[in-house]
C-alpha cells in the first residue's frame, strides 16, 4: 500500500513515519507540508492512503479534498476535536486526534486496509463527508480549479453567483469561475447579511449593488457597480428590503 503524509509540522510527519515503520506492507512515497503540494502529489503519485492534517498554510486539508475528483482513502490527523469529529464517525472516514497512541494508529490502519479493498464506495463517502463538513462552516473563501491552476477566492471579492445546472458560476473582478456546488449550499453558508438570494438563479453581494429599479410591471432588477443587471424575484425583493432596510 502506497501512502503520502501531508502535515505542515515536521515532527508530526516523523511520528507517523515512525509508527508506519512497523508495517512492511506500507510504503511512504512522499511527504508534503501544505495543501498545494499535497494536491499535486496525490494527483501525480496516486497513493492508496493519505494522512492529512486539517490546518495547513495556503489550502486546508478540507479544501484540498474538495478539489480532488477521486480521493484516496484518507486518515485525518488533527488537533481539533469540535463538531467535525461526529461527521468523521458517521461517514466512516477515520481520524486521529493529536496526540494519538500506537494502538489507535493501528486501528486506523486496519480500517484503511479494509477500505482500500472497496475503494469505489469510499470515494463517494469521502466526497459526501467533505460536503457535509464544508457546509457546516461559514464560507470565508472558495477554492476553484481551472485546468491545473487553483484559485483561492475570498468571498468578499465575489460579485454574484449564478446557477448553472449542477454547477454555479462565480463572478468576481478577476473573471468568472465554474464550481461544482449548489446554490442551496452557498445560500446556507455565505453570510446572509452580505449575500442575498435575489432570484432562483442568482445570489448577489449587496456591497456590489448600485441600485434597484423597477423592471416591467410588478418586478425589479438590481444594477451592479460593474453595470451588470440581474432579475429580482418577489421573495428576493423582500429579502433585499430586509437586509438593506429600505
Amino acid at each position, binding site marked *: 500500500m502506497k501512502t503520502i503524509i501531508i502535515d505542515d509540522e515536521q515532527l508530526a510527519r516523523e511520528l507517523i513515519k515512525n509508527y508506519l515503520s512497523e508495517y512492511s506492507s506500507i510504503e511512504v512515497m512522499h511527504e508534503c*507540508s501544505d495543501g498545494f503540494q499535497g494536491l499535486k502529489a496525490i494527483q501525480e503519485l496516486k497513493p492508496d492512503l493519505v494522512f492529512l492534517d486539517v490546518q495547513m*498554510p*495556503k489550502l486546508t486539508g478540507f479544501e484540498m479534498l474538495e478539489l480532488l475528483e477521486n480521493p484516496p482513502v484518507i486518515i485525518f490527523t488533527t488537533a481539533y476535536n469540535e463538531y467535525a469529529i461526529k461527521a468523521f464517525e458517521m461517514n466512516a472516514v477515520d481520524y486521529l486526534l493529536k*496526540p494519538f497512541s500506537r494502538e489507535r494508529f493501528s486501528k486506523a490502519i486496519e480500517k484503511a486496509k479494509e477500505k482500500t479493498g472497496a475503494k469505489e464506495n469510499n470515494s463517494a463517502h469521502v466526497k459526501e463527508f467533505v460536503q457535509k463538513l464544508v457546509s457546516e462552516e461559514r464560507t*470565508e473563501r472558495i477554492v476553484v480549479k481551472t485546468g491545473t491552476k487553483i484559485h483561492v477566492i475570498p468571498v468578499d471579492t465575489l460579485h454574484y453567483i449564478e446557477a448553472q445546472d449542477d454547477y454555479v458560476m462565480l463572478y468576481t473582478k478577476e473573471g468568472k469561475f465554474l464550481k461544482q456546488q449548489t446554490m442551496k449550499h452557498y445560500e446556507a453558508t455565505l453570510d446572509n447579511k452580505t449575500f442575498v438570494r435575489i432570484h432562483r438563479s442568482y445570489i448577489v453581494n449587496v456591497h456590489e449593488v448600485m441600485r434597484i429599479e423597477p423592471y416591467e410591471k410588478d418586478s425589479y432588477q438590481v444594477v451592479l457597480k460593474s453595470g451588470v443587471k440581474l432579475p429580482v424575484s418577489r421573495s428576493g425583493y423582500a429579502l433585499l428590503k430586509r437586509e438593506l432596510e429600505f
Partner: protein
Amino acid sequence: MRNPFLKNIIFYIAAWSTVAVVDIVILSRYYNLSLSLAIADSLVYNLLYANIAMNFWYPVKYLNLEKQKPFVVLMVHVIAALIVISLWLIAGNFIMNWIAEENEAYKTFALSAFLGRAVSGMLYYFIIVLIYYLYIYYFSFREKLTREADLRTLVKETELSLLRSQLNPHFIFNSLNSISSLTITNPAKAQDMLVKLSSYLRFALEHNKNSLISFEKELENSLLYLEIEKVRFGEKLIFEKEISTETMYMQVPNMILQPLLENAIKHGVYESQEPVVIHLSASKENNFLCIHISNNFEKYVVSKKGRGIGLRNVQERLLLIYNKKDLMKTTVNGSVFEVELFIPQQ
C-alpha cells in the same frame, strides 16, 4: 423620560376626580354652599390645578438632586410653588366671579376659604413633586441594576475569551503531538519541551486577571511560548529581540504579549511556507513602556478566520486597566504586520 402621569393618564384623572368629589362634599356640607356652586367651585379649582400640575414635571426633571445643593432645590420649589399657587388662585377667583356673579354668600365664603385654599394648594404641590421624584429614583435605580448586570456579563465574557485564547487548545494539542514524536526520536528534547509547556501553562493558569507584573517576567513567559512554537516549526520561525535593560523592571499587565506573538505566529507562520521573522523590541519613552512586534506574512494568502480577536482582546484589556484609548496601534506595511503597545508607568 416622559411625565409618568401622561403615561398613566387614567390614574391621574381618577385621583383628581376623587379630590373634586371630596371637595364638593366639604363645600356643601361644612360651608353650606348650594350644590351647584359647590360643584362649580370644585370643578374650576381642581381642573385648573390638575392642568397646571402636569408642568411640575419640568423643574423636577431638570433640577437634579445629585448635582444641586438641597437648599437650592428646596428654594426653587418654594418659589415655584408660590408663583403657581398665586396664578391658580387669581385665575380661579376670576372664573368663579364670572360664574357666581353677585352671589353674596359665595363671596363671603371665598374670602374665608382663601387661606385654606392656599395651604392645600401648597400641599398638593409638594405631594405631586414628591411623586415625581420617587418615580425618577425608582426608574434610575432599575436602570442602574440592569446596567450593572450588563457590565458584569461583559467582564465575564472578556475574561472567558481571554482564557480561551491563552489556553488555545490547538496550540496545546499540537505541542503535545510534537512531544509525542520527540519521545521516540529525541527523548531529551521531548522532556525539555514538556517542561517548557508545563511552565507556560502554569503561568497562564495562575495569572490574576488584571494584575501587573514586571516586564521581565512577562517576557520570560512569552519566550517560553515562542520556544515551544520554535520546536514545532523549526527553521520556519525566526525570532529576533531587542530589549533595553531599563524596561525589565517596568510594569505590564499579565499575559499581554502572548496574544500578540500568537497572532504573529497564526497569520505569519501557520499560513506561510517561507521563514517568518518575528521581531520584538522594547524601550522606555517618557513615562511609557513601548513594545513593538512585527512579523512578515504571505500577502496573497486569504486567511481563514479569527483575524483580530486576539488583538481586540489586548486592546480591551488595556482600556479596562488604564482607562485610556490609543494604547495599541497596528499597521500593515507591505507584507509586514506591526503592532505597538504603549504601557503607561506610574
